């Protein structure tokens, strides 16, 4: 992660081009994903507090809370991932990109971006198949709550599908020179 990273990437100049429109729309969706993930984490905190109250103050059993909080955070991870990718929050090893020349840096960024897309597509398809299996066979959790598992599993194909979109938008922005490779705009002075 670069310490000076902008949390909000530079806005794409409002041109009528199809690529601009695509990138802008994907970023809007990714920002929405960020809000949803933040809400899921906040819900997790609230439910943990409720669980502690019920368990330790009222001395009653808790049934659904542990599962619910865990599912919330799993969903936050997958759904929040496109937002984190957009704001360059997924850490990387940035030694080579920082010290490489502009040409090599661009190729590294293309490689890294293509690899990300490849992974996202494959894992999105695999998790969709996993979700479908849970849906078809009506799987439920083996805990007391007996939650229908297709609900938490759905976060995976949805989040990873949107992550694929964001990574494609990133690659497009990189290839067309709309974004600098790895967001590095100036040479490091040492």
């Amino acid at each position, binding site marked *: 992660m670069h310490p000076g990273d902008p949390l909000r990437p530079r806005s794409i100049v409002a041109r009528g081009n199809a690529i601009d429109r695509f990138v802008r729309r994907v970023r809007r969706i990714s920002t929405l994903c960020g809000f949803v993930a933040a809400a899921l984490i906040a819900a997790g905190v609230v439910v943990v507090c409720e669980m502690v109250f019920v368990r330790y103050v009222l001395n009653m059993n808790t049934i659904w809370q542990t599962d619910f909080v*865990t599912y919330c955070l799993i969903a936050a991870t997958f759904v929040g991932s496109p937002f*984190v990718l957009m704001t360059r929050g997924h850490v990387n090893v940035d030694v080579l990109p920082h010290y490489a020349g502009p040409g090599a840096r661009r190729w590294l960024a293309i490689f890294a971006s293509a690899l990300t897309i490849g*992974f996202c597509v*494959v894992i999105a398809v695999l998790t969709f*198949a996993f979700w479908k299996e849970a849906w078809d066979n009506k799987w439920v959790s083996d805990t007391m709550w007996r939650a229908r598992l297709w609900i938490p*599993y759905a976060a995976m194909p949805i989040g990873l599908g949107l992550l694929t979109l964001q990574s494609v938008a990133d690659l497009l922005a990189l290839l067309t020179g709309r974004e600098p490779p790895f967001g590095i705009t100036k040479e490091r002075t*040492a």
Partner: protein
Amino acid sequence: MSPGTQGTLVLLVTLVVLLSGAPVAFGLGAISIAFVLFFQGFDALHVVAETFYAGLNDFTLVSIPMFVMMGAAIGSSPAGKDLYEALDRWLYRLPGGLVISNLGACALFAALTGSSPACCAAIGKMGIPEMRSRGYPDDIATGSICAGGTLGILIPPSITFILYGIATETSIGRLFLAGVLPGIMLTGLFMLWTLFIIWKRGFRAHAPDFRYTWKQKFGSIPKVAPFLAIVIGVMYVLYGGVATPSEAAGVGAALCVVMAMVIYRMWRPRQWWKILRDTTRESVMILMIIAAAVLFGYMLTSLYLTQTLAQGIADMHVNRWVLMGMINVFLLVCGFFIPPAAIILMTAPILYPIIKAAGFDPVWFGVILTINMEIGLIHPPVGLNIYIVSAIAPDVPVTRIMWGTIPYVLCMMLQIVLLCIFPEIATWLPDHLMGAVH
């Protein structure tokens, strides 16, 4: 293909992919899928999604976003400034008092936020300009803050310990306690070194001719005391066996957010969003790496690479301290390039059986591993803290900051040696409070 050749291939590909600058989580995931497909065929892919999901399906992991939120709530409030002021107003008349208050503030803020970059940024913003305006040399002013910031991952509550605890199934409570004494010792070592070097350079730091009034001295304390009380409360609840780490951290996070709202009047939705956004970014990043690292671990185990490596090292019959030395060098080199969370999640499952087989205490090793990660945070070429401090003091050349951090790297190495000679520094407190595990 023999496991040795397979292992070398995996190592090389992992290095290439990570060094290319691809996000660690996606790089690890891509490597895992590629090797499962390559060595085990298309049919083996059906477990990938399940493994990826199972990596996150653990209530213990809930403690990560909760602790991150505690840190984010405190970090986005002016608590760091108040903590710094409180210490400075009490210690300003001592020779070198400013250094002690800076490093002390770093250590306390570390306990509050558990994050090295946050600690570096919060204390550095006040500490560095203040030290420079009082005539401290640039390399000492910046180097001490870089080093003080690293204490964030050693002094509990620390995300690094949670990750190590999860990856190796070691008690997180025990790890937290094991970090306390080494953390205090390391803070002491940093202070001693800084006092020595400013004394050697003929710098006799005395306060200017003014005195803070008692009102000023007590002024900041009521603002920071509640946060310290929350963190101490969370620790107490954890060790009293009252609640699990996730529950304690969840309540702690909620209380910290409420306190930030009440004490610092952080009512605006924009301020809430900042806390939630920072929590989301950091938690999602860590949790995604966890899911990918579990997949990576599955790939290594299903190809028998972990077992082959552990067996190979056992067959070498090297002295266990030589082995520990080699592991330390390996971790140091990793720390130069790779962020701590990724190193721990990738290497801990591989190193754990080796450490156990060689008769080392896994809790003690957790502390050694964490200090190694601290070194990586202030050592070039990655050294995240160096670049944070550089952003605070842009007129100090990066090379000067780097030179300023070297003595502190040596302090940390000394601490590792001390821990090897006297493992009790780490193990005494958990054994004393929680009973020995033998």
